[in-house]
């Protein structure tokens, strides 16, 4: 069960366990959990609350925080670089994530159970997603899509004159989206496992009934795979929103050219750790949480209409 499904189960459990009772391993349980408990409060919950407080202050690390109420919020409303960074991030997420999922599902469908070379293909397709978030790959991307990089050399062979993909504001973001799609191996592996769980019997029955491959795909594969599509979608969305490394390296930390790769997290980093404008960065961090939470909630709400669970 995924973490997502697990949460739903817990709610039921909590309801059924109301009322006082004795806990069998109360002391041992809390002792084993102690590192986590300390960490949860000290590293997660209290800092989260502190970030919320800082969001209403002006704070530069040197002087103590100064309460400025809604000023950060109104600054966000009028900050055009912030709006731009949201647009860049949303474009990246809403183009890159669906594209990556479609590719990963398509390739997973091609990899039949027990086919020759399966392990080889799976490894080759998975490898990029393991390396994709490294600085090394971002360095490579910068060269490949550079003015005299690999892509333009290949294009020149067929007589097309390329351009500096990374250095042009129109295309810089696209190179990062391509990088995201290139790392489709991780969701693909999850799709593969999901496809293996669909009993062959369904397909046999459908083909006897005369359903073609496309119809089988639409009426068997997709409906039975919806929980996994949903899981991949949620995980990739949350991940893509927080992407940082590639944009930082490819643009040399600036988010350029012309702010075209200024991801939200990169702008947050610039504000918080470049200019030490911690109050504003804190406000931005909470906006990020709110956006991710809202999108996840919307997805869960919509899931009722398209995700089929057997239980």
């Amino acid at each position, binding site marked *: 069960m*995924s*973490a997502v499904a*697990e949460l739903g189960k*817990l709610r039921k459990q909590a309801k059924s366990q109301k009322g006082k009772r004795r806990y*069998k*391993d*109360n002391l*041992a*349980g*809390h002792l*084993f959990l102690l*590192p*986590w408990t300390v960490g*949860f409060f*000290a590293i*997660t919950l*209290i*800092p*989260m609350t502190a970030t919320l407080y800082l969001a209403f202050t002006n704070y530069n690390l040197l002087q103590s925080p100064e309460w400025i109420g809604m000023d950060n919020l109104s600054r966000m409303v009028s900050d055009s670089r912030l709006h731009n960074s949201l647009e860049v991030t949303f474009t990246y997420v809403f183009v890159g994530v669906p594209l990556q999922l479609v590719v990963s599902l398509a390739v997973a469908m091609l*990899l039949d159970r027990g086919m020759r*070379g399966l392990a080889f293909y*799976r*490894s*080759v397709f*998975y*490898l990029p997603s393991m*390396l994709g*978030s490294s*600085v090394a*790959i971002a360095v490579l991307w910068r060269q490949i899509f550079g003015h005299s*990089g*690999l892509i333009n*050399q290949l294009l020149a062979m067929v007589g097309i004159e390329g351009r500096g993909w990374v250095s042009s504001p129109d295309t810089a973001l696209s190179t990062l989206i391509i990088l995201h799609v*290139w790392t489709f191996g991780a969701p693909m*592996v*999850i799709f593969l*496992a999901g496809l293996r769980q669909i009993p062959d019997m*369904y397909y*046999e*029955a459908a*083909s*006897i*009934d*005369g359903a*073609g491959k496309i119809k089988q795909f639409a*009426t068997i594969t997709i*409906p*039975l795979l919806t929980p*996994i599509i949903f899981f991949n979608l949620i*995980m990739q969305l*949350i991940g893509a929103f*927080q992407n940082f*490394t590639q944009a930082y390296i490819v643009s040399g930390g600036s988010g350029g050219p012309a702010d075209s790769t200024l991801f939200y997290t990169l702008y947050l980093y610039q504000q918080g*750790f470049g200019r030490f404008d911690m109050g504003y960065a*804190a406000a*931005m*961090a909470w906006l990020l949480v709110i956006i*991710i939470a809202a999108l*996840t909630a919307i997805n869960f709400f919509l899931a009722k209409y398209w995700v*089929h669970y057997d239980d």
Partner: protein
Amino acid sequence: MTDSPKTQTPTDGQTVGMAQGINKEKRDAAAALANEEVLISTKPEEMKVETPAKKAVKSTIKHLLLIIASLVMIYPLLWMVVSSLRPNELIFREAGILLTTFHFDNYISGWNALSHPFHHFLLNSFIVVFGSILANLVSCSMAAYAFARLDFRFKIPAFALMLMSIMLPVHVVIIPQYILFSNFGWVNTFLPLIVPKILATDAFFIFLMVQFIRGIPKDLDEAARVDGAGHIRIFVQIILPLMTPALATTTIFTFMWTWNDFFSQLIYLTSPDNYTVPLALAAFIDSTGESNWGGMFAMSIISILPLFIIFLVGQRFLIKGMVTTGIK
């Protein structure tokens, strides 16, 4: 189209049973039974019968597609490896991956391009990675044992909070964390990168291990309990040895994520003395600009080599880990 598979299952099951005695009338009847939508474009007989030749062609096409896709996927990596062995001026002229000369100088110039030789950064990265692995293994397995096997107060809400923390973006805690660690004087040390892991903040691994422990038969620890073993003994002598696959998965993922981690290392490690590999590579771009691509590629290859080795050795665990946490 929108029929849920659940409602189709019984009829489909029936169809399979009938189809075994390959009988046309029965098959047609079953087809009619199972499917009201007559959207079928091809006749059933034509669908089923596929000559071996046709099958072979289909499989060849499929393999061809997959091989082309593999090549496209892997080409940039191969090209980087080859380019790291080419003189600088050739990198921007040679799109092929056939190596005519073997030029090892890039590795030497790259290794010494920064204020410290590259093994200094490799060593720093390894320290952070091994600290993180050790911390995750101990703290997450303890928490997982509690969640999976013990009965204590606040277990359910704690478990729910743990699951939710998996999805929490680091940005919402990083600023106060930074302030906290800088008050401790920990900025520009490895401690801010390792200490949170001692406190089991990588909740993803707790979840992975909980899933795994749930699959271990309870009889084993109950028998030990009857024999008078305490929780520590059950945990150390029964559960831990049995959960080595989950520990291996944790090790591999922690290695991968920490090795690749850029954001928190960028924030906490400020002097070149403490730079890890990702920071060193970033500094490489800044200091030599675009002038030494060969050296940069060479060090990039060096930097992903450990990942590649982990990938070869631990692919089995990687994939298993993704699948157990991803789906049933």
